[in-house]
């Protein structure tokens, strides 16, 4: 499968999609893309480093609340507000990354969870600023700079999110196929050996956590600007859980799998929640089934059918990063 062709076709399909579906589906489409981006950000950690974060909601919540709070005080144009929110998220992510990467495995997972819970607690502690359990409502999005306002409409916003998602995907893909990405594969496969080769794996892990937070924060900021509100639920452990499920079921370590996982999750959730109250239970069960029997996820299964031999580094013939697992 020629990757470039696949990408162009998918991008074109996504561009055309909102024009052929009913107007009321547009909201779901936007949310789906945002969740897809959020899930992909976690894949950097889970799929490429095998660092299981149980607190990635923190990235999402930080992005959302950063945008919301900034916009409460300064009426910045949307793109600027979002960029600033991402910058804030990244800044806060650095000490978090430094602390969490001191440990591995369960301890890492617990630390990430603890930070997310800490964020959750802080929202209630400083409820004057953050609105506590009510959250922040009426978050605006302003046109600009230079009077650009095509993203003010729902359709326009869809294209904004699509551009962000596609751009982030390209960026992440380039990262995992770069020398940096190869080291991540080494960390995933045999960290002691990677260190013995002379790589400072701690620094690589910190960087990856920060990157993951950055992209997750972008998703959060896009969400806050779209929905117009931010609530503590964004930091809740179940939010972290859901995105982890999306990554695993979608296919960890493929970037595409988690995006699909996120997108499908939103659609399924929307459809199923109208029919039954049991859908979280169903998702949880499906998740456990995948963990046990199909850890490579849906996309992993699909692509292993088409993959004949692992691609050489830097070639586009496969969906492989230089160090992606065969």
């Amino acid at each position: 499968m020629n990757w470039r062709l696949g990408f162009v076709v998918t991008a074109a399909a996504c561009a055309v999609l909102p024009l052929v579906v009913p107007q009321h589906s547009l909201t779901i489409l936007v949310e789906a893309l945002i969740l897809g981006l959020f899930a992909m950000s976690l894949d950097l950690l889970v799929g490429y480093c095998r660092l299981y974060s149980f607190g990635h909601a923190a990235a999402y919540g930080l992005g959302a609340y950063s945008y919301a709070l900034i916009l409460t005080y300064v009426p910045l144009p949307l793109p600027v507000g979002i960029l600033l929110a991402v910058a804030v998220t990244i800044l806060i992510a650095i000490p978090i990354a430094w602390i969490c990467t001191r440990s591995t495995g369960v301890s890492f997972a617990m630390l990430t969870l603890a930070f997310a819970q800490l964020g959750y607690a802080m929202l209630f502690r400083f409820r004057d600023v953050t609105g506590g359990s009510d959250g922040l409502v009426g978050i605006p999005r302003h046109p600009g700079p230079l009077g650009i306002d095509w993203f003010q409409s729902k359709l326009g916003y869809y294209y904004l999110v699509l551009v962000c998602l596609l751009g982030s995907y390209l960026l992440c893909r380039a990262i995992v196929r770069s020398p940096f990405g190869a080291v991540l594969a080494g960390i995933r496969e045999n960290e002691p050996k990677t260190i013995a080769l002379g790589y400072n794996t701690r620094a690589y892990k910190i960087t990856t956590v920060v990157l993951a937070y950055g992209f997750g924060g972008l998703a959060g900021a896009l969400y806050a600007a779209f929905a117009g509100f931010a609530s503590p639920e964004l930091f809740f452990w179940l939010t972290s859980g859901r995105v982890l499920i999306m990554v695993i079921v979608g296919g960890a370590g493929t970037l595409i799998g988690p995006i699909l996982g996120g997108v499908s999750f939103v659609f399924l959730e929307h459809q199923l929640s109208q029919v039954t109250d049991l859908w979280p239970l169903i998702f949880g069960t499906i998740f456990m089934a995948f963990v046990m029997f199909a850890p490579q996820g849906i996309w992993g299964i699909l692509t292993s059918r088409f993959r004949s031999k692992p691609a050489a580094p830097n070639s586009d013939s496969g969906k492989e990063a230089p160090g992606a697992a065969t």
Partner: protein
Amino acid sequence: MPLLECRGLTRRFGALVAVDGFDLTVEPGEIRAVIGPNGAGKSTVFNLITSVLKPSAGQVIFAGEDVTGLPVHQVAQKGIARTFQLCHIFPALTVRENVRMAAQAREGRRWQFLGGGGVLSRSATAADEAMARMRLTRMADATAAMLSHGDQRLLEIAMAIAQKPRLLMLDEPTQGLSIEETGRAVQILKDMLAAGDLSVLLVEHDMEVVFKLADNITVLHRGRVIADGAPAAVRASAEVRSAYLGGAQ
């Protein structure tokens, strides 16, 4: 100036003294073997030199620089490549990628996020060279986990070579290798040494390999050096004999 110098290296585990006042030098271009009965502390010495274990006392000087207790990756960056007793490779990656990872470690710009095509192709070329040396080229695209134990060991050595080290530390490299594979490895090492600019420190049980390769031998017994010198002298030493035969107290 010696390339590597160990001065009074000591390592205690509680009451057990695993290595006691270990002295050793490796000159540029030298092959030195460290031998000794099981439990003598050979792997511990390796771990102390590469900083996987921090010494209780003593120093490690590499190329005139005190590297004692530096983080493991920094010691490796100084120019020391090492193999492990329990074969350490990247099982899920291809053979080529395994070696390329090692070669990439020498690149200055390996932090590159984007592009990095130059780094990737240079390290791929270096990997191809190392694989060719170890006669692994035909297996380049195989998953490392699929290789036989012997080939995995050779892969590990290829990775060490690809790091273009100044000091190559091999921890029982021929363990589990067939006679043919052992002979192959020995010849390759000899060729590399002839090409120059490489020193080797090796731990080995196979005495034939030791006497074929080593310029000098250090004998360890119960954490202490009991003999140090050319192979002939060591072979003749009464102390060494009794250590191996278990008579020594």
